[in-house]
């Protein structure tokens, strides 16, 4: 038995064509029964009202949306072959492709874990952290409902350390790559002796058996019954709540009977857990900045004409003059691109996204125009925020809460301006404001 292969495949479900091991090695392990094969696509027989309906299922991403399957005549198997378009960016899975599963003794970590964290928790954080630990030890799912800037990641450290000590395999999953990239160096510092892998689209190959995996929820399509404990961070972020296959992916990656824990600032109804902790204070103890509403009638028309509405112009000029960094959130990429003036701007497909955020942090630029892509995960000292068109559909209450959560995160500047410029107040805006005020009261 090849040890490296064992370490690689333990807990994974992997496309045969993509495995970084020689063909002969794989063949030998299949023959010995160490590797189990699964067809890429299977058909489920469904008893329908009239006759039988055949439903395709992708064995990697568990997609069952039928219009995301395509059948063609395959030159490799010389038959009609069906493939899944849903997870095609991870390498195509078709009827004639084989998925490899490790079917023998699991690899185990050999590290003596060390907990090198010297930070301190506030009494509220401490309480939530202990509640989480109790749930983790009792293997009961837990929801950690914490406001933006409460210091959520630190709360996980203790629970993760205890699990690692018990020889458990732990996964911290988040919907966005940016979050994983931010968490990775922090975890490496806190657990210096643990093998940690960070998995996201385009991640480099990483060696050895990881006891702790930080992964985007997408990458969990490639795992099956791998983890003893899973923490889903930012469980309210797009696309996790909107894409059912991602939620299924998290469940599939978790061992049966193992609990999944969620961390979020804006829980949705679909997140059902046994236990819950609420953390309604920021780590610095100050109130959350409450968004104020300001009308900006007909902003869309004015922007279309190449004019920045007066109030918005004033707001931007004031921030530029006082040299405070600012973010302006816009509802669409079109509006962002056509925004008059030469303010730097970022959206999801923007190649210099990271650099521009860095420049804002270092005060090399005065402000940034952005789409909702920067709604979470970024911390910029003393940043002021304006949302233009806050009544638009894309700004759900949870998006608005996250955006408001960018303001006043540091000890030095616990307050700041957060303004919703609108063309009519929406219910979602009200909801966001009420929620933030509610946390401040509690």
């Amino acid at each position, binding site marked *: 038995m090849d040890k490296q292969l064992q370490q690689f495949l333990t807990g994974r479900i992997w496309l045969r064509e993509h495995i970084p091991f020689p063909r002969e090695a794989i063949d030998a392990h299949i023959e010995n029964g160490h590797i189990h094969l699964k067809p890429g696509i299977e058909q489920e027989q469904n008893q329908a009202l009239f006759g039988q309906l055949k439903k395709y299922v992708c064995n990697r991403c568990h997609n069952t949306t039928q*219009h995301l399957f*395509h059948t*063609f*005549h*395959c*030159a*490799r198997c010389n038959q009609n*072959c069906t*493939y899944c*378009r849903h997870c*095609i*960016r991870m*390498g*195509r899975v*078709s009827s004639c492709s084989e998925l490899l599963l490790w079917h023998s003794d699991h690899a185990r970590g050999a590290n003596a874990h060390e907990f090198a964290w010297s930070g301190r928790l506030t009494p509220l954080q401490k309480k939530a952290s202990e509640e989480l630990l109790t749930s983790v030890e009792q293997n009961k799912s837990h929801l950690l409902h914490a406001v933006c800037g409460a210091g959520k990641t630190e709360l996980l450290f203790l629970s993760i350390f205890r699990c690692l000590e018990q020889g458990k395999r732990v996964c911290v999953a988040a919907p966005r790559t940016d979050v994983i990239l931010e968490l990775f160096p922090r975890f490496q510092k806190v657990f210096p002796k643990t093998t940690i892998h960070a998995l996201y689209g385009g991640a480099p190959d990483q060696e050895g058996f990881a006891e702790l995996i930080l992964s985007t929820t997408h990458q969990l399509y490639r795992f099956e019954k791998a983890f003893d404990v899973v923490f889903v961070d930012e469980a309210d972020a797009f696309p996790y709540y909107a894409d059912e296959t991602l939620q299924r992916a998290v469940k599939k990656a978790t061992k049966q009977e193992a609990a999944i824990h969620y961390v979020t600032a804006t829980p949705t109804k679909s997140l059902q857990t046994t236990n819950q902790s609420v953390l309604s204070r920021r780590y610095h103890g100050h109130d959350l900045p409450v968004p104020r509403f300001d009308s900006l009638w007909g902003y869309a028309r004015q922007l279309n004409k190449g004019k920045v509405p007066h109030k918005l112009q004033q707001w931007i000029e004031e921030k530029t003059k006082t040299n405070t960094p600012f973010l302006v959130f816009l509802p669409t990429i079109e509006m962002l691109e056509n925004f008059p003036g030469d303010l730097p701007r970022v959206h999801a497909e923007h190649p210099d996204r990271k650099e521009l955020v860095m420049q804002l942090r270092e005060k090399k630029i005065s402000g940034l125009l952005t789409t909702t892509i920067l709604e979470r995960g970024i911390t910029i000292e003393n940043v002021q925020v304006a949302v233009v068109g806050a009544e638009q559909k894309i700004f759900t209450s949870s998006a608005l809460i996250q955006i408001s959560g960018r303001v006043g995160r540091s000890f030095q500047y616990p307050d700041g301006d957060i303004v919703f410029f609108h063309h009519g107040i929406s219910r979602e805006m009200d909801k966001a404001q009420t929620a933030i005020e509610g946390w401040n009261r509690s």
Partner: protein
Amino acid sequence: MNCLICGTTFQPSPTWRKLFLYEKESSTCDRCFSNFKKSDATIDFSDFQGTCYEGAVDTVTALYSYNEAMKSYLHQYKFLQDVALAQVFAKTLHQAFEGNEGIVVPIPMHPEKLIQRTFAQVDELLNSADIPFQHLLSKTATSEQGKKTRKERLEASPLFEVMNRVEAQHYILFDDIYTTGATLHHAAKLLKDAGATRVEAITLIKG
């Protein structure tokens, strides 16, 4: 309908043509499709003058130019093997070949390469557009054109051989992308030498 490229649902716009005549349904939303740019440059292949390929191809028509949208389309279609994307250009290809008299001959793939990719991307484009075609050529060279310089491409030994009878007829070669033109000139010369009267070429993209 769900757009094949971005996945959002869209409503194909009703047209009189669709109601009374035959027209292929579009498989992408307008927003995605408008990112492809029609090619207006006429293809100049005067640089083949003086070589043995002079006059092999009579005309070349390329339908689209190569831009970011096309690049990511080709990546998903060929590299990620998303065969379904062959339908994206079904309508435009159907129109391009309409009223064009001549036997359509797709540029073939090497059999080994075909098994690797699992489908012939050039044939699938024609299939989805309901354009009948004949395989007259077979690929003999295994090396990939994309990795060679123009000079190397032209000096290469024949890339294809004729595997069926070529008549004294009008042929239309079809390929996915026109880069230096070496592939099409190699193929056209073979057809002409075997007795074809006229050889036209149509490609989806001008590289």
